[in-house]
């Protein structure tokens, strides 16, 4: 008892000090992180909350009068041809860009990774990544020229090979494909970069074992690299899908021009929102569109996480 008492006193003392120190550390961490949280709350969470609130009102941006309309904006949206058109186009572009970006960036990353001994490896990486950092407006203008029905090199190439020139920027389907190509071209570099990091972190021993078992390069890629890179695929698919749903400038630039031959305007959600807010002055209505976009992106991201986790467990 004596001995326990002798030892207990200093222990409880130490524990007390430790508790105080932990408390201090806790409060220091809270205070340190508070400015970041405050900024995040102000620039990220507040606009989202405000958008949710505005979606329930009718407001023309200028008037002090802002009547509450409940879910009326949402009801009207689902009867609005332009909005439904925008949803279909945006979904086609987002999924189309994802379908192109993921396999192509994975294959390109594999090729670059396995060719790292080449003295051109750095050049390949840079060349693939450049579209991601190039300013969107001049890039889209260049693509507009590429797709031009009369003057564009794409149609010239098609005609040179005996094909028929296509109205790339005017046909309802082709104009969406043009935007998918442009979005994919831009996101590809980012996908390749992330996949390269993934490839570099894959365990070499597994590949050596597979080689000893007689697996060739293609088999290793499909049966080992692809499953092992699932977390990377999840990340790239989420990023691509979200950026695809936020597509705006590509559609705007490929169609807008006060001169020459403008193209068919592919109506996408963000463009429709901007038009409703700042040209039609229907801010509540545009906010309702933003809420729907938010819900779509959240649901799809949740589904992607769910699917890849389930497969990972199997």
């Amino acid at each position, binding site marked *: 008892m004596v001995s326990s008492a002798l030892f207990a006193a200093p222990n409880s003392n130490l524990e007390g000090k430790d508790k105080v120190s932990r408390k201090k550390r806790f409060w220091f961490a809270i205070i340190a992180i508070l400015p970041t949280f405050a900024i995040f709350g102000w620039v990220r969470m507040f606009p989202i909350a405000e958008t949710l609130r505005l979606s329930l009102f009718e407001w*023309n941006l200028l008037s002090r009068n802002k009547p509450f309309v409940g879910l009326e904006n949402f009801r009207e949206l689902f009867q609005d041809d332009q909005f439904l058109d925008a949803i279909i186009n945006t979904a086609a572009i987002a999924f189309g860009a994802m379908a192109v970006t993921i396999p192509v960036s994975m294959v390109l990353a594999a090729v670059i990774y396995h060719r790292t001994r080449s003295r051109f490896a750095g050049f390949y990486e840079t060349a693939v990544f450049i579209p991601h950092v190039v300013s969107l407006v001049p890039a889209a203008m260049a693509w507009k020229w590429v797709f031009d029905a009369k003057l564009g090199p794409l149609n010239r190439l098609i005609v040179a090979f005996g094909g028929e020139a296509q109205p790339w920027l005017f046909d309802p389907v082709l104009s969406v494909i043009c935007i998918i190509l442009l979005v994919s071209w831009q996101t590809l570099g980012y996908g390749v970069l992330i996949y390269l990091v993934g490839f570099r972190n894959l365990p070499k021993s597994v590949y050596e074992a597979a080689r000893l078992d007689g697996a060739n390069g293609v088999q290793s890629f499909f049966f080992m690299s692809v499953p092992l890179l699932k977390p990377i695929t999840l990340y790239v698919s989420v990023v691509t899908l979200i950026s695809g749903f936020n597509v705006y400038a590509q559609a705007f630039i490929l*169609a807008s021009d*006060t001169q020459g031959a*403008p193209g068919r305007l592919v109506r996408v959600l963000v463009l429709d929102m901007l038009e409703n807010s*700042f040209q039609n002055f229907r801010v509540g209505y545009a906010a309702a569109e933003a809420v729907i976009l938010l819900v779509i992106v959240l649901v799809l991201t949740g589904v992607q996480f769910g699917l890849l986790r389930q497969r990972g467990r199997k």
Partner: protein
Amino acid sequence: MGKLNFIGRMSTILCLSAGITVGGHIAANAEDIVIWGGFPELQGYYERVAESMKSTHPDLNVIVEPIGLRDHEKRVALALSSGLDETTVFELIGSTANRYIVNDLLPSAPANVAGFVNNAANFEPFFQEVAAVDGKVYGVPIFRGQGALFYNTDMFAAAGLDGPPKTMAEYTEYAKKLTQRDASGNPTVSGWSLRLSGGGGGIAEKFWINLHQFGGSLLEKAGDGYKASYANDAGLAALRQYVEAVSGDKTVTVEMPADAAAFQREQTAMFIRESWVIGDTAKKAPNLNYKTALLPRGSIALPVNLYVAGGSEKAQKAAWEFAIEANKPEHLIWMLDNVGWLPNRSGVDYSSVTTAKPQFSAFVDLPDDYVFFTLPSIEPINEILTRFAAKLTEAYADSSLVGNDAAMMAVLEESAAETNKILDRAGILGK
């Protein structure tokens, strides 16, 4: 000591920074005015006006920031609704400015400016009315958009045509004769360039110009409100002409180069546009042989005014003086000559320009029965045009409509119902 020194140095730096910031802010409010325009080609004109004010306002700093019209409209909406620090002079089409005025976001003009605008020697009543709301002046008229036919005289001569078309039926006939085709019969040079695609309400606005020639209008006054008035014979005639040009006669196609750029590159024989094309063509295609002609019945007239908002009283005074300075004859003549937009001010002798550039005659030498129309100053005008434009784009590209008047009328009726729904929602649907 070290700590004290450090605190002292920091305090000095902070005080100096605050002083510089506050001082800079005061200076900016007192002497800077910003010119926001939606027509980039007018940059030189505003810079010239600013330069001429240097002698009377040596401290005045004028910053000219023009951008494309649609983006300009968006920034004006954002700026006026969220507040302005600097005194800004806005270029706005009268119908667009109305919504800001009724929401008290644009101040009325001071008495001397109102006197200048209301002086019958300076402006005709049409421009005075567009610059005012309920009899109170809010803007200073500056220039207008007005349409006329531009036609390539070499192509007309080659097609055996010795003058411009005078009726809408002739427009179709001339377009057939003027279209140049390749061996397979595909058009390579359009006979008549029409606005068939693109974004915004421009497609509907251009349709309205053609509709006007058939005696129709997109909207008509009905009691205290408005209603769609294009699902009728005039609307059908205008739509039929478009559809037949694209899918029937194929005198133009959706993917062909269009508008002023195509005209300047001789990729189209004729098109309808505003007077700025004259100044633009002088720069981009000085050797192009072309003339202009009146439209069969009349034209759109979109008066643009200068409005002032934001900043200090002193800077606002300078901004209004800028708007009046911009209306001085020497600047207006320069604008007409170098840019091509039509000044609104009366009593100025523009003959030096119109004689040297006879293409202006179709914009200034107008018969008494020439009928003008303008966009009504109603809040949903842009939404009406944009939504109608989306329907028109589909119709123009739909070859199944050729020869099918009932289907074309169905398109017009469906669009008119949508237009009326928008008017009803805005509470201005006429009975």
